[in-house]
């Protein structure tokens, strides 16, 4: 099985994408399955590192959390844009991070940047510090705790 399908999750994702794009029918499931199995094998030549990904409840919890936070921060940023009266002070933030898994770090970067109001600027892999720009930086410590508690802990559960 491992030799036939070296990347089962990737194959499944490609198949789901195929079915979403073409519409559900038995023929398309078979065709999409074949294409997914063949195409996912091209990843072999890239020799990706082992992700250490563990599917589980934590993935759903993280997804729900991110969706809720995106809606919340959309409203927060809209208030800052619309009402000049809303006081805000933007600035950079150094965040010490314990995550080491490159895939988990990439996901954290996407989460932080996709959420309005926070932007991942760079990651210092030697000192394990990430630089974030925050639109509404009231309390640095509060932001650090927020990101560490909300996202980092869940990501550590999902990876490693």
């Amino acid at each position: 099985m491992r030799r036939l399908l070296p990347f089962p999750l990737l194959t499944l994702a490609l198949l789901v994408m195929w079915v979403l794009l073409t519409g559900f029918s038995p023929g398309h499931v078979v065709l999409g399955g074949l294409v997914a199995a063949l195409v996912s094998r091209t990843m072999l030549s890239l020799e990706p590192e082992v992700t250490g990904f563990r599917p589980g409840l934590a993935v759903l919890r993280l997804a729900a959390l991110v969706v809720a936070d995106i809606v919340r921060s959309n409203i927060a940023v809209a208030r800052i844009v619309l009402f000049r009266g809303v006081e805000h002070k933007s600035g950079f933030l150094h965040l010490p991070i314990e995550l080491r898994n490159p895939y988990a770090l990439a996901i954290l970067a996407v989460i932080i940047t996709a959420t309005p109001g926070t932007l991942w600027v760079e990651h210092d892999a030697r000192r394990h510090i990430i630089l974030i720009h925050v639109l509404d930086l009231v309390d640095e410590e509060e932001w650090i705790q927020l990101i560490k508690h909300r996202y980092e802990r869940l990501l550590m559960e999902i990876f490693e």
Partner: protein
Amino acid sequence: MIQAPDLPVWAAIIVGLLLLGGAVVTLIGTLGLLRLKTFYERVHAPTLGTTLGSALVLAASMVCFTVLQSRPVAHELLIGLFVTLTTPVTLMLLARAAIYRDRSEGVLPVPPSSRVPPRDE
């Protein structure tokens, strides 16, 4: 929209509200480009359009075409997924280009680079 007349009134209202909501959120985001002061602040504004704005527009499309049953409903989830995955790349590139420039010019107060340790002189 040629099929729009076939849309029942209740669905048309939902679709209209979702579309309007998405358009308003995206508009607020673009207004942010005008109203925010520095480059780093302005980079935050367009994310409104790529997150909630596009989500609402995609939801409108899903409702509309599900009701009309002209094609599968979940199509739009893929658009949402890829928009969410690719926007951060652009934003990060912009921000990093800006911080690189600001560091080398030394005009704006930005955190120093951690990559090159400061040389003793």
